[in-house]
């Protein structure tokens, strides 16, 4: 965005950002601390374990301006936001952002009447600090690396959802984030479900153009109190020149269920840390992931299932297909604290490599300190089998149809786990768009 190019990620830019926000002091303090840390921190290097497989030497922060500040004059607008998760879905509310500038925010009256709060994170931090302050940055770690610190210092236009005790939201809420070509998005999403609350959130991030560039420095925090139930879907389809750095973390309490479905299709380079902390007995998480890459995309996902309480269950399945010269990295960990007896942990990553130059790194891991647990993990990497293609061709399928069918079938196991039809359809369509013309 042209109006931001004069603002850099430096003290002057930071001050300008602070001046543009009407935020409570405690939040400004958090930002200042993060900014100081960011200034002092080095960029991650390849000798760091998390970055061995992910080369960011081509990334230059200075090429991107700060996110659009609320004081900037023209509100950017994008026609026909490319949202897909909402087709045929009756929503309870929605928030739209463009380059982390909120352009639209709504919540059905009946939900507001029940005490549900859904809107701009910075506004709500000001108006209802008691809802935000106890949770902000409790799952997200601003000191994780320089990207995290920069995010904490420069986050703008975040979304916040609060569902009070016992309130069940029967309609999905939608968050649509759009990144313009060359734009910057520092959105922070914070979701808090009180005891026994229930919600479904459909979150999709797109670029204005499949080839667009830009920078996303983001974070998602999902906080669930005892007995709450959350279905969270995030579909990431940034343009194929965009950089995407994010922490996506959940902390779920006693007897909670979390079904988290993630689809990563876009970006030139992604480095995401996704984790679920199970902190109350009987908590149950299911994480489903779909990755489908092409061109020279590089998607690195570091995931964690962290069992900190007894009798919790975590079920994790990522399926990834790689085309062209693209590469995915998955490094997963099931961590079990000594007190987390009776843990049931499952972790699996399957890869389908569709080209000789594509690559998948799949590194499962277990770190178990309790003795009465059941943890299993697995990882497979295979190529499309020419015998399968021949078999399908003998039944009249063209080579392309056969490949498309085999790839779709590969992802079916994930689809079988998704209970929301619009999400299944959107994912199916996203996969279908991505399948190459093979010959």
């Amino acid at each position, binding site marked *: 965005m042209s109006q931001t190019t004069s603002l850099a990620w430096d003290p002057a830019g930071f001050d300008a950002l602070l001046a543009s926000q009407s935020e409570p002091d405690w939040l400004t303090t958090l930002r200042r601390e993060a900014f100081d840390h960011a200034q002092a921190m080095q960029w991650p290097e390849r000798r760091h374990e998390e970055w061995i497989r992910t080369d960011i030497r081509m990334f230059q922060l200075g090429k991107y301006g700060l996110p659009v500040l609320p004081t900037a004059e023209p509100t950017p607008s994008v026609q026909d936001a490319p949202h897909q998760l909402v087709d045929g879905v009756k929503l309870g509310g929605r928030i739209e952002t463009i380059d982390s500038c909120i352009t639209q925010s709504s919540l059905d009256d009946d939900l507001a009447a029940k005490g549900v709060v859904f809107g701009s994170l910075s506004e709500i931090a000001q108006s209802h600090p008691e809802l935000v302050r106890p949770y902000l940055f409790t799952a997200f770690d601003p000191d994780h690396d320089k990207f995290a610190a920069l995010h904490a210092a420069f986050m703008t236009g975040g979304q916040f959802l609060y569902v009070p005790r016992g309130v069940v939201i029967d309609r999905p809420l939608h968050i649509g984030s759009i990144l313009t070509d060359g734009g910057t998005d520092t959105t922070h999403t914070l979701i808090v479900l009180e005891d026994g609350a229930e919600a479904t959130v459909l979150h999709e991030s797109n670029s204005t153009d499949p080839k667009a560039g830009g920078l996303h420095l983001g974070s998602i925090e999902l906080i669930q109190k005892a007995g709450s139930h959350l279905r969270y879907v995030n579909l990431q389809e940034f343009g194929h020149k965009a950089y995407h750095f994010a922490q996506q973390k959940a902390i779920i309490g006693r007897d909670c269920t979390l079904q988290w479905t993630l689809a990563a299709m876009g970006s030139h380079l992604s480095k995401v840390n996704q984790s679920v902390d199970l902190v109350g007995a009987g908590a149950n998480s299911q994480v489903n992931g779909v990755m489908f890459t092409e061109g020279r995309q590089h998607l690195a996902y570091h995931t964690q299932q962290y069992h900190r309480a007894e009798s919790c269950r975590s079920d994790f399945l990522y399926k990834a297909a790689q085309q062209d010269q693209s590469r995915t990295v998955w490094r997963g960990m099931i961590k079990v604290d000594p007190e987390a007896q009776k843990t049931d942990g499952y972790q699996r990553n399957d890869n389908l490599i569709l080209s000789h130059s594509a690559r998948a790194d799949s590194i499962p891991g277990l770190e178990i300190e309790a003795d009465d647990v059941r943890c299993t993990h697995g990882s497979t990497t295979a190529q499309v089998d020419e015998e399968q293609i*021949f*078999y399908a061709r003998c*039944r009249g399928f063209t080579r392309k*149809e056969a490949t498309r*069918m*085999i790839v*779709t*079938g590969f992802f*079916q196991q994930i689809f079988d786990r998704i209970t929301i039809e619009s999400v299944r359809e959107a994912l199916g369509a996203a996969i279908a768009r991505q399948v190459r013309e093979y010959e």
Partner: protein
Amino acid sequence: MTHVLKIENLHVSVGDKPILRGVNLTINHGETHALMGPNGSGKSTLGLAVMGHPGYEITEGTITLDGEDVLAMAPDERARAGIFMAFQRPMAIPGVKMADFLRHATTNVRRPDRKEGEELIPMREFRKELKEKMEHLRMDSEFARRYVNDGFSGGEMKRAEILQLAMLQPKFAILDETDSGLDADAVRLASESIADIGHQKMGLLIITHHDKLLEHNPPEFTHVMLGGRLVETGGPELAEELHRHGYDRIRKAYPDAAAANEEMLGEETEEALA
């Protein structure tokens, strides 16, 4: 017009190894041919070569369907032209439901000019037909919802191949040991089903070691393959003789082919051991 599948002087190699060494075979629509022969003689190779498997190189000879050059066609074009093979070892396609697979296959084969992305046979119409065919084959309707050959028992795979034969209604079908690995009851059921679907309605080339399948589908012709050649052709009595007495007489009568067969079998064993 009677459809004719004609194989002339077919030589096929895998890698550098010749497998078929001049096969001649003409099948008219409505005829049933049995193809017998000891292990390693090249029976499955013939089927795979007719379907156009990329690993099987045609070094000499022709295959034509009603005068059209089959060798110039891609495997899916052969399927759409009306040639079918029931695989000895069908491939699993996890995540793809039998019904969806068959709907797409049936559409492509019935509408050979269909372009990618064009409409499939209407779901309702297709389901009705599939249900009828499955009932006829005494298959549980649950079968259609399972993933193609994924976790199927040997018997289920063979029945799935027969169901595909029933749906695709090809002009010519090669059945590669569609009766092997089945118990006696299943063999009878498979034999009856094939007779019902295909006997005298298609040109059938039945590759088999058993007599049950041929009892229900009496062949007009029996061919014996040895060392990559059809060394003898006879009527149903030849199939019976081979079934009763094995291939000793054939081996003695055709020592060169028998030697070639031994050599091919030896290589196969070496490969299996490697």
